[in-house]
């Protein structure tokens, strides 16, 4: 049943969200259905609750985290459900009339039902985590409701402020709840409520309390974060009537009451909660006097009353708790009706500014009467419900034991509360309904539609009924609710209008008297209407948020300024740190002597060393003259290749050489479209810094390499590979066997990378038009003599390529080297004959070559799967032919064929794309031609 009750608002919200183009009336009816049906369910459950039973239901949600969908309906929950649903139903009715014909009914009621459901879920929740879930849902849905008129600045600001503060509180609450879960070992409310002693005795208690109270205080708009509430008044009035009288703001005090058995009862709780409550009460009440907006008065009054409730819960005596609950109910009724009345007035007159209103008593008698009664209830005038709970408050204030200074403080606060309350109520009534006016209202003012008054009337009747006959009307309910909090500790109390002449009564009368005097006095002394009070909270909030954004911007722009140099610098620095840290940490520790025999220098090592080092430094020295740097870097490549040869790695040397050549070609192709040199960097410190970083990186890498090389090798795996290469993989070039067999999967990935590079370049250049940096005048050059030679070389290089491919498994070579070797003669043809000539003659589809290569490699690997062996398991077959003898067929060769095709295809695709770029049509203005007469022989560029 509880699920049904809770589901109703959500389901109907969903229905509303889906419905399109439904008339407003139907929407309102559907929306009203939710609270009405839920109320019916609640009514059905009421007898059981009154009996002291707690209907429960539980569904697992996330047992690992202790999160369960468990609902329970005890007295407190019942009371709040009643409020949420009852006032909810009235608000729906009211809102139907309130919203203008052009308003988005569907969205409004959808959000309203979402909120209603969230609120209901919160009060029904039997699991603290679930409470947090619904708690935050109320924040979100209230954000949507407050921002309903999102085209208005104040609505957006109010919504953001409310969400920011309540969501922050919600996060704190989450923290608190998780801590409670740690202490108690469960999030089930029953367990938590039963574990009050444990919680209070735990060392985490202050933290728990602080975090939970942070949630409570933000939600219930307690000082000093109360300021969001007045700004939430930018919401449509039905929303205010609902959220800020009965529901949203009550969520905080609800939770305080809910966790009262677990958290209350310590001095810390007493002092913190009562002090905050008392301060809120005073601040709210005092500010309410100076508001000109009707809803402003009501908002500050709400703050003040919430302070009162908090204060009562802080006092923690059973009677105080009863009073708090009683006041929650009372406040909900009169404040909801007042908000609705204010909405009616706004609706009819077009303003809520009390400075422009007045004399409405004559124009709207019924509404005025209702509003005045409700205001009196708010002021705590006898025979109305507000009076009763206020009396109880006074009594509790006077009975504080053991904390003398608190008793004085609270009593004075209570008296001031009464005084201010009377004053602002008086002002509210007087400025609106009495005197001359309405001033400066150009509308024809009359009573609203009858059914718009009905909700107000119902609530006011409730105020009066409770005020006159509390025991009959509210008594049983209150008792049920109080039992929900206090359990067996329910005090003896009597709900009666007359308790005889006692101090509270005198205080009440004194308060009324002082309030009237205060209002009259203020009116006499000050020009109330001229006082414009800025909301300091808002300003502070605004400043803080702005400061926050500024901080974010400043930091982010200072740190993440989009500079690539900075990214790379950090990478280098972190790498240096990571590499150096262990050695620094191990500095002073005794080092074991390294048993290591250094390799003697190879004969030509000294040449290579000089070549390598000088070319590296030469590249560095010449980097600004790019062509020269590329040239000098060619020396580096040669040195590295020769080092590989000298150190027993012919395959590497071949690959390095080929790649080096193609890289240089690509760089030259690229240089055609890039500036010829780099500008000089003026900043010396910057250069020095980079130099230092580079030195550290170089030294660090050298040190690491040296330390690694001088360790004895751990190459058992390599030995095994070497030993198994010939008998099991049928290849004597172990490097190639590793590439196509042992680690063939790496190669598959590698050719994929290579193929993708081709595709990426193709994608980037396919439609690109670029202006070359500078062009030489004249038509393309032909070089007959080199062309002739290249033509002769072409078939021979093909032979070399095939040779390297076929022999690769047993000698240096293989698919990759062969593929590049095949690309080289074509490159020459491109260079000498021009791209167009080559491509028309050969008509390769390089992209398909890449695809085919990948498919062949993949197919070869997958063929093993047909034999129920893993991917890439190699096979070998000796084909014996009559004349030719034995021809070894190896699956590895097929795999290598895939490599061959991909490498060839991709290399040629890249070269061809870069070589056949079309000049830009628009950007040509930036670039120019080189005057042959002015070219510098030093750099080859125009000087």
């Amino acid at each position, binding site marked *: 049943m509880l699920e049904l009750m809770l589901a109703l608002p959500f389901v109907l919200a969903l229905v509303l969200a889906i419905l399109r183009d439904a008339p407003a009336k139907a929407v309102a009816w559907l929306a009203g259905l939710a609270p009405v049906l839920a109320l019916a369910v609640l009514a059905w459950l009421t007898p059981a609750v009154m009996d002291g039973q707690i209907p429960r239901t539980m569904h697992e949600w996330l047992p690992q985290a202790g999160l369960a969908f468990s609902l329970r309906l005890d007295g407190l929950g019942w009371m709040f459900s009643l409020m949420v649903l009852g006032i909810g139903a009235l608000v729906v009715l009211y809102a139907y009339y309130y919203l203008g014909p052009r308003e988005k009914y569907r969205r409004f009621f959808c959000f309203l039902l979402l909120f209603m459901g969230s609120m209901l879920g919160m009060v029904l929740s039997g699991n603290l985590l679930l409470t947090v879930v619904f708690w935050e849902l109320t924040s979100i849905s209230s954000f949507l409701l407050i921002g309903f008129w999102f085209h208005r600045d104040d609505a957006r600001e109010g919504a953001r402020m409310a969400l920011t503060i309540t969501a922050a509180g919600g996060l704190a609450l989450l923290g608190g709840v998780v801590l409670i879960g740690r202490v108690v070992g469960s999030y089930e409310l029953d367990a938590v409520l039963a574990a009050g002693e444990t919680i209070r005795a735990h060392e985490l208690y202050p933290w728990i309390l602080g975090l939970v109270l942070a949630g409570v205080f933000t939600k219930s708009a307690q000082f000093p974060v109360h300021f969001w509430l007045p700004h939430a008044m930018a919401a449509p009035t039905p929303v205010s009537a609902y959220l800020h009288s009965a529901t949203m703001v009550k969520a905080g005090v609800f939770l305080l009451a809910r966790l009262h058995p677990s958290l209350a009862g310590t001095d810390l709780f007493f002092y913190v909660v009562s002090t905050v409550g008392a301060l809120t009460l005073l601040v709210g009440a005092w500010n309410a006097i100076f508001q000109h907006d009707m809803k402003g008065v009501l908002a500050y009054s709400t703050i003040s009353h919430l302070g009162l409730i908090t204060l009562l819960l802080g006092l923690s005596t059973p009677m105080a708790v009863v009073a708090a609950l009683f006041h929650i109910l009372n406040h909900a009724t009169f404040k909801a009706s007042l908000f609705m009345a204010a909405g009616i007035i706004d609706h009819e007159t077009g303003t809520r500014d009390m400075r422009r209103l007045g004399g409405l008593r004559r124009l709207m008698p019924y509404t005025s009467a209702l509003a005045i009664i409700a205001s009196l209830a708010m002021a705590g005038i006898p025979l109305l419900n507000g009076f009763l709970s206020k009396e109880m408050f006074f009594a509790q204030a006077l009975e504080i034991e053991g904390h003398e200074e608190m008793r004085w403080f609270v009593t004075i606060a209570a008296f001031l509360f009464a005084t201010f309350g009377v004053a602002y109520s008086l002002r509210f009534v007087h400025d609106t309904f009495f005197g001359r006016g309405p001033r400066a209202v150009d509308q024809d003012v009359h009573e609203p539609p009858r059914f718009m008054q009905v909700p107000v009337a119902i609530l006011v009747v409730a105020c009066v009924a409770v005020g006159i006959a509390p025991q009959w009307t509210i008594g049983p309910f209150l008792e049920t609710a109080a039992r929900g909090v206090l359990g067996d500790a329910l005090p003896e109390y009597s709900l009666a209008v007359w308790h005889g002449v006692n101090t509270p009564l005198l205080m009440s009368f004194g308060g009324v008297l002082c309030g009237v005097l205060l209002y009259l006095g203020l009116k006499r002394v000050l020009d109330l209407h001229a006082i414009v009070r800025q909301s300091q909270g808002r300003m502070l909030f605004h400043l803080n948020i702005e400061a926050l954004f500024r901080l974010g911007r400043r930091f982010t722009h200072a740190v993440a300024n989009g500079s690539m140099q900075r990214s790379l610098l950090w990478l280098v620095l972190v790498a240096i740190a990571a590499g150096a840290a262990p050695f620094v940490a191990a500095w002073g520790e005794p080092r074991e002597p390294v048993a290591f025999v250094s390799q003697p220098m190879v004969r*030509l090592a000294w*040449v290579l060393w000089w*070549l390598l080092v000088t070319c590296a430094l030469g590249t560095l020295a010449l980097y600004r003259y790019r062509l020269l740097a590329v040239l000098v870097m060619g020396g580096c490549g*040669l040195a590295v290749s020769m080092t590989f040869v000298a150190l027993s790695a*012919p395959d590497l040397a071949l690959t390095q050489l080929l790649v080096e050549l193609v890289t240089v070609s690509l760089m030259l192709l690229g240089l055609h479209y890039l500036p010829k040199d780099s500008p000089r960097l003026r900043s010396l410190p910057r250069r020095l810094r980079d130099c230092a970083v580079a030195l550290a990186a170089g030294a660090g890498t050298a040190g690491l390499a040296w330390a690694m090389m001088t360790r004895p090798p751990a190459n058992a795996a390599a030995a095994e590979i070497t030993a198994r290469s010939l008998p099991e993989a049928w290849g004597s070039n172990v490097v190639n066997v590793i590439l196509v067999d042992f680690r063939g999967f790496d190669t598959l990935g590698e050719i994929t990378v290579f193929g993708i590079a081709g595709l990426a370049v193709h994608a980037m250049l396919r439609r690109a038009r670029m202006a070359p*940096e500078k062009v030489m005048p004249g038509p393309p050059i032909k070089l007959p003599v080199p062309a002739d030679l290249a033509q002769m070389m072409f078939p021979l290089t093909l032979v070399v390529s095939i040779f390297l491919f076929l022999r690769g498994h047993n000698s240096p070579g293989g698919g990759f080297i062969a593929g590049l070797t095949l690309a*080289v003669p074509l490159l020459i043809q491109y260079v000498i004959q021009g791209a167009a000539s080559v491509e028309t003659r050969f008509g390769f589809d390089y992209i398909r070559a890449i695809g085919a290569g990948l498919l062949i490699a993949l197919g070869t690997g997958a063929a093993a799967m047909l034999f129920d062996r893993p991917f890439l398991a190699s096979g070998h077959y000796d084909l014996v032919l009559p004349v030719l003898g034995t021809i070894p067929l190896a699956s590895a060769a097929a795999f290598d064929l895939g490599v061959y095709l991909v490498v060839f295809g991709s290399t040629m695709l890249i070269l061809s794309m870069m070589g056949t770029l079309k000049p830009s049509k628009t950007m040509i203005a930036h670039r120019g031609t080189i005057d042959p007469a002015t070219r510098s022989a030093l750099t080859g560029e125009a000087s």
Partner: protein
Amino acid sequence: MNTPELAGIQIFGFGLIETTIGIAMYVVGIAMLLALWRLLRGPTVPDRILALDTLNVTAIAELMLLGMHLQSAIYFEAALIIAMLGFVSTVVLSKYVIRRDIVE
């Protein structure tokens, strides 16, 4: 396979041919460094291209000498490729100097 043997002439206690190979390696190495000097020094672009070309050619000699020194034929492919690519890179670089656009 029955291969003829070298005489193994000894000079100052070292094999003559070995010593000669060693000397040749040093001499060719010096030539490489001279080419390197020209590569770095320039002054003109064609000078550097020429130096790079010379480096490639001398590298072939050096590699073959190393092959003799280590009595291994494994360096053949590397030398062949260097010869091939040295030419190609000279073509490409010269074409760049002449036309800036190496593929027209």
